[in-house]
């Protein structure tokens, strides 16, 4: 570690948010009355005072260079009195008081390659994670898949194509699910499909055996002496490739170019609007890692969205729609194959079995 400076400041926390609020926000803080979406990517909030705040939401790849941060700062100076914010899905929002400046801002953004959209019943940014850009655990890349999918979904981001309701896509590059994809309308999840290859020669040096054993949710790991090394063995039928052992012990790598890939999950949601929050459920167990454009993933996501857009009723999130039509219909309409992998076999599996005679039969 580098030497510490003379007078070290610590534990100050972030700057107080008030320092960063635009004057109109300070003035109308907590006194907003309603909002309207004016056009794709542009909305206006009206305060009780009558003040109007215009928001322009622009796409972001999230992974951005300081150059882009400076460019955003410049645009904020030019159009927004030096203020902007980012959203919980990593878009950037420009806050204007003068609606006449909106078009110019949008044009500047377009010039820089930052389209606007993602408001209301549209596809917004894909919440995602590090992938091969930074993480050791990734079963796939994050940014590359996201870029490929968003390129295909642009008509839905820009509001050129209609969706029945908000549609949230998320990606996580391994089962740790840093993108918290477990409650997304559509989730893309990197998966390993083979057990860890134990590095017996170094395990004892790098890890504690009991911690490694305890890391396994299915009890697949046992202490063992292998080739004279104090190490562990993995009972392969018990392993479902969660990589939790690798998280606690680097001597248990799972990454594998041929058998790592992606899975698709659908029907989750977070908001309490109408139905309660809900987990995403398995749609496609495995798609191959096919960089740089992951065509299989792009096709799978696009297909689900198109079928959904064509069939769901207004205000039905993907999960609400499937709830109404039933999972058998979902598989039929999307053409996705139903497999043994879809049937839960983890600890609480029984809850997902069909425990009634409520069955639909196609009338052909």
């Amino acid at each position, binding site marked *: *570690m580098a030497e510490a400076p003379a007078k070290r400041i*610590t534990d100050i926390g*972030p700057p107080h*948010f008030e320092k960063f609020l635009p004057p109109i926000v300070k003035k109308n803080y907590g006194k907003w009355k*309603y909002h309207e979406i004016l056009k794709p990517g542009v909305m206006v909030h009206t305060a009780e005072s009558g003040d109007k705040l215009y928001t322009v939401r622009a796409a972001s790849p999230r992974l951005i260079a*300081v150059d882009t941060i400076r460019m955003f700062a410049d645009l904020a100076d030019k159009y927004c009195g030096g203020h*902007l914010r980012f959203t919980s899905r990593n878009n950037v929002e420009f806050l204007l008081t003068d609606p006449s400046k909106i078009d110019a801002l949008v044009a500047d953004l377009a010039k820089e390659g930052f389209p606007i959209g993602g408001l209301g019943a549209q596809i917004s940014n894909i919440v995602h994670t590090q992938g091969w850009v930074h993480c050791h655990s990734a079963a796939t890349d994050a940014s590359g898949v996201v870029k490929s999918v968003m390129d295909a979904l642009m008509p839905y981001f820009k509001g050129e194509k209609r969706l029945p309701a908000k549609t949230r896509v998320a990606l996580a590059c391994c089962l740790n699910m840093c993108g918290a994809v*477990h409650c997304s309308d559509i989730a893309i999840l990197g998966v390993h499909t083979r057990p860890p290859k134990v590095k017996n020669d170094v395990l004892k040096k790098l890890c504690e055996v009991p911690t490694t054993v305890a890391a396994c949710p299915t009890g697949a790991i046992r202490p063992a002496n292998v080739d004279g090394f104090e190490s562990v063995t993995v009972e392969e039928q018990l392993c479902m490739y969660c990589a939790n052992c690798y998280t606690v012990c680097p001597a248990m790598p799972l990454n594998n170019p041929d058998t790592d890939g992606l899975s698709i999950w659908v029907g989750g949601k977070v908001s*309490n609007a109408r139905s309660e929050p809900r987990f995403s459920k398995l749609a496609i167990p495995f798609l191959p890692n096919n960089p740089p454009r992951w065509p299989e993933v792009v096709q799978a996501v696009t297909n689900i969205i198109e079928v959904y857009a064509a069939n769901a009723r207004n205000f039905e999130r993907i999960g609400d729609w499937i709830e109404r039509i039933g999972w058998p219909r979902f598989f039929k309409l999307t053409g996705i194959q139903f497999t043994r992998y879809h049937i839960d076999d983890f600890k609480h599996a029984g809850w997902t079995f069909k425990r009634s005679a409520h069955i639909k039969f196609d009338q052909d």
Partner: protein
Amino acid sequence: MAKRETPMIDELRKGPYPSFVNEMYKLQGRKPMVQDLLGQLEDSYEQRIGHWKHGGIVGVMGYGGGVIGRYSDLSDKYPNVAHFHTMRINQPAGWFYTSQALRTLADIWERHGSGLTNMHGSTGDIVFLGTTTAELEPTFAELTAAGFDLGGSGSCMRTPSACVGPARCEWACYDTLKLCYNLTQEFQDELHRPMFPYKFKFKCAGCPNDCVASIARADMSIIGTWKDAIQIDQAEVEKYAKAGLDIEGAVVAKCPSQCISYNGKLTIDDGECVHCMHCLNVMPKALRPGRERGATLLLGSKAPIMEGALLSSVIVPFINIDDPEEYEQFKELVRRIWEFWDENGKNRERVGELIQRIGMPTFLDAVGLDPEPEMISAPRDNPYIFFQPEGEEA
């Protein structure tokens, strides 16, 4: 050093969505680190595998979190990413910035790191993506001088986050930014020094729309709500109807508790309303949350490792959370929860998992909360009741 050709990832420079590869290109001319990152990433694309090693423990003095160590397994080929640590910088609540603040951050990172960032990480931090161990302390010094500080990692409390709330949203039922800031400041020690069995996240959502996904991604989810009647402006209802809104189909029929009726006038049976937000979402001009506002507290959500993913579940149906006393009560509850978790949690056991393991009733007793039917979707269906010696007539 000659730039390695990167035809595969260059493919991703094309297409309408902003490209992270272009972001790297903006820097690669002046940042050898980014140039090597591009190279290594191309290797990953070719070989369909990552090239990062398991992170070691690196950080700034006196902090146990805030930095993720990262080392390349191709450091011979790409020496400039031999070290490629990230720093997590605690974002200002609600992710508001001045251009000035952004430039300060950019300049610091230009000086000390790759120049690549995530705006923002999934937990909410500003993520500075890629630097060496030697640069950590100087970066930290400049950051704190500029009024910024690190966020959490490891078994720390994590950087709390908040929806935009009262700053721009008409539905905020409590001040999400203020609470987020207050928690962050109060728990600086917990944020910077690992002291828990595992991580702990707060997320503050101003209403049940939950725009920070708190119910899925925070150990403690604070979701704004109201207790009294939804405020109705019948004149605006009429305007919506005149403007062509199908109030029957889009509002009445979609209310999950079927407590709205409409015949020229909109009537809501507020005792039956489950506060789902739908009717307000569809008619923001006509409907507003009630005046008695506060929040529901939910505990325990997390990603699937190890027992399967969890959503947070209700532990306090309603609290007022505005004045200092209410803040203090809330933080006292948080401390009791942490204490219980500290004492009973296993290594790497999130609080939600602990509750599943030891039982919600035991947890409630321990932290001093009364059981209420609002905490459950249904009572138990198994007869395996742990009767308490003194309590069988309860």
